[in-house]
């Protein structure tokens, strides 16, 4: 029954015991218990499923995912892929998934940056800065996120109308319709340049690995920057020039009711992003602070005694040790941020929950709608877990 007694290491020569059909034999007990527990769980599930089938029949609710191919007819304000109300429910839900990813990924990056800054600020020698950071962390963590989101959304609506939009920099407009930025008039050449940029990043990474291997061999440091410059800046530039060097920029301009052209960040998205970022940053700050404090003062002193420069101390000595403490709780914060993005439904950002919700409302197919929401979040959560675990294993202390 108990964990340790069946651990093979505890028996010197595990005697092959006969399985006796007796309550005194703990293996028999274990089997009986498992059969009973699984039986109960299966029974409850069977009962629920039977009830559900009966209820669906009585209420004449159709089941199945056939509705995904029907025309959705619901308007969506922000979409990363082509969408019209004539598109199918499947397309609408895909738009929702992409919207969720858009806010979660950018939120994770921003929250990490802000959280790290606040965490370091809390350890600052400047009393005022440390106190401000402490108050920020305490206040932001003790108020429900939903309340904060509603607050931010209300605040953003207080911005001026498009005609009186704030115009801090030429081409940038901030109004209650969101933030409008000038953006490149997207051509094929831009896509190719972007591709080249990604390829350049990958190439730089390969080069860095090769250089490090060489350094390990002969101990001589080699500079990475010439290769990096060539690959990351040069390659996309060449591709862009080869594509005809299009330079047209789409400037936002006030036409009719609103600004046309350029790139928009809607108030809903902005409020959600600010809310998620500031809230999660409060938690990340504490994690970062704990991580830095976990590296003992002796490590700093020892590294300085070796004559390492402060930047190198931080990068090569302190950070690798702090990261070991930081990464596992950080993973759960990333997961929390992603799951919290579902609160978008309260302030009208059309993420997967909002669109699936409308879908189940229009089609009456509650079970399918909720199953879709859960499946999407489980997939995202597991992906984040896996990638963070992979990273954690890489940086984990290798004990010999």
């Amino acid at each position: 029954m108990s964990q340790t007694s069946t651990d093979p290491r505890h028996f010197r020569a595990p005697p092959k015991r006969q399985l006796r059909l007796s309550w005194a034999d703990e293996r028999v007990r274990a089997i009986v218990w498992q059969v009973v527990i699984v039986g109960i769980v299966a029974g409850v599930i069977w009962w629920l499923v039977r009830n559900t089938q009966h209820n669906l029949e009585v209420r004449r609710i159709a089941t199945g995912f056939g509705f995904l191919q029907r025309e959705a007819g619901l308007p969506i304000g922000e979409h990363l892929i082509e969408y019209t109300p004539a598109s199918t429910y499947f397309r609408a839900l895909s738009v929702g998934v992409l919207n969720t990813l858009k806010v979660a990924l950018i939120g994770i990056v921003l929250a990490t940056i802000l959280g790290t800054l606040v965490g370091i600020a809390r350890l600052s020698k400047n009393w005022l800065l440390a106190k401000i950071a402490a108050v920020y962390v305490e206040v932001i963590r003790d108020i429900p996120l939903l309340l904060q989101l509603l607050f931010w959304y209300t605040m953003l609506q207080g911005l001026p109308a498009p005609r009186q939009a704030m115009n801090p920099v030429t081409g940038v407009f901030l109004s209650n319709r969101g933030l409008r930025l000038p953006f490149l008039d997207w051509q094929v050449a831009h896509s190719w340049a972007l591709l080249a940029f990604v390829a350049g990043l990958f190439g730089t990474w390969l080069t860095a690995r090769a250089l490090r291997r060489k350094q390990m061999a002969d101990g001589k440091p080699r500079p990475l920057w010439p290769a990096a410059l060539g690959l990351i800046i040069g390659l996309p530039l060449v591709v862009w020039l080869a594509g005809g060097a299009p330079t047209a920029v789409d400037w936002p301009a006030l036409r009719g009711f609103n600004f046309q052209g350029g790139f928009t960040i809607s108030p809903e998205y902005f409020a959600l992003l600010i809310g998620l970022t500031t809230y999660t940053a409060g938690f990340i700050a504490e994690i970062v602070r704990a991580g830095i404090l976990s590296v003992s003062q002796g490590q700093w002193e020892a590294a300085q005694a070796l004559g390492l420069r402060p930047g190198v101390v931080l990068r090569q000595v302190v950070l690798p040790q702090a990261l070991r403490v930081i990464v596992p709780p950080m993973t759960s914060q990333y997961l929390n941020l992603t799951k919290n993005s579902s609160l978008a439904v309260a302030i009208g950002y059309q993420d997967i929950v909002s669109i699936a919700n409308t879908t189940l409302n229009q089609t009456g197919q509650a079970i399918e709608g909720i199953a879709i929401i859960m499946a999407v979040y489980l997939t995202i959560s597991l992906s984040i877990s896996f990638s963070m675990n992979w990273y954690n294993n890489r940086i984990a202390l290798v004990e010999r």
Partner: protein
Amino acid sequence: MSMQPLRRVMSGLKGGLLGALAVTVVGALPAAAQAPAAGSAATLDAIKARGTLVCGVNTGLAGFAQPNSQGVWQGFDVEYCRAIAAAIFNDPNKVRYVPTTAQSRFTALQSGEIDLLARNTTWTLSRDTSLGLDFTGVNFFDGQGFMVKTSTGVKTAKELNGATICVQPGTTTEQNLTDWARANNVQFTPVVIERLEELVGAYAAGRCDAYTTDVSGLAATRSSQPNPAEHTILPDVISKEPLGPLVRHGDQRYADLVRWVHYALVASEELGITQANVAQMAANDTRPEVQRMLGKNGGLGQMLGVSNEWVVNVIKATGNYGEIFARHLQPIGIQRGPNALWTTPGGQQYAMPFR
């Protein structure tokens, strides 16, 4: 290390759990006991046995259903709940109000959590047939329209091309809007917010150029703005929105009662029976129809399974249709329009004969 404090923690926690369990068992009993049979033919008996009507209402819509500062539910839909409770119990306060959201409203009625859904719900074919629910009548004729800020200078809905429009998701409103936009080749950017107060807030703050919902809702919103003259309701009405109370399909006797309470309210207005004069009319009025309605003769109440004085009780509690309308909807700027009695031009409210 002493184990004593640990034991204390353990036993403290255990005790807390037991207490919580006890309270919840006690709590769950009334909850389970009040469960009526969904879809069966005994809703009215279940309501009588329970002693209260459970009424599903909006979570908060000015004029229709909304709790006041004292937490008392008020509004047009709420009066219907009160009227039916008065017909059954001769006490309009024997109602429990369950606030329902746009998604939970139908499930709540299907599952028997509520006896009646009085929550401005549009009567459509698919809702009538595929939800296992029945509409009992139209207590409010409505249509979808647009409201814009007067300063935009927009005069008709078709000028809204390129506009940002605020709309509540998961409603017929949303589908009507997209249908209309496609038919008229109007491009628009939607802002969809589930909670009404949030949505109206967004429109008022200028997040949207136009706000679309039923005209009654627009009027209510307009009148609640600090300066109503700054907002214009466009003349275009892009859909029919007949709103009415719903009951579960399959219990005709109860559905009849709900239907005839509505007719009683309308007929009372036709016949001039008001909250103030109902007692006196019940005693003195000699018109045969009035005598039948107010229970002097005919035994109409018994046919519905309630007391013969049911109409007297209803009108005493809520007043007639016109009085309810005047009390809750006219103050927020909704005119009678199509909801006037059929005897006035343009009016559509019509009661079946009490005979």
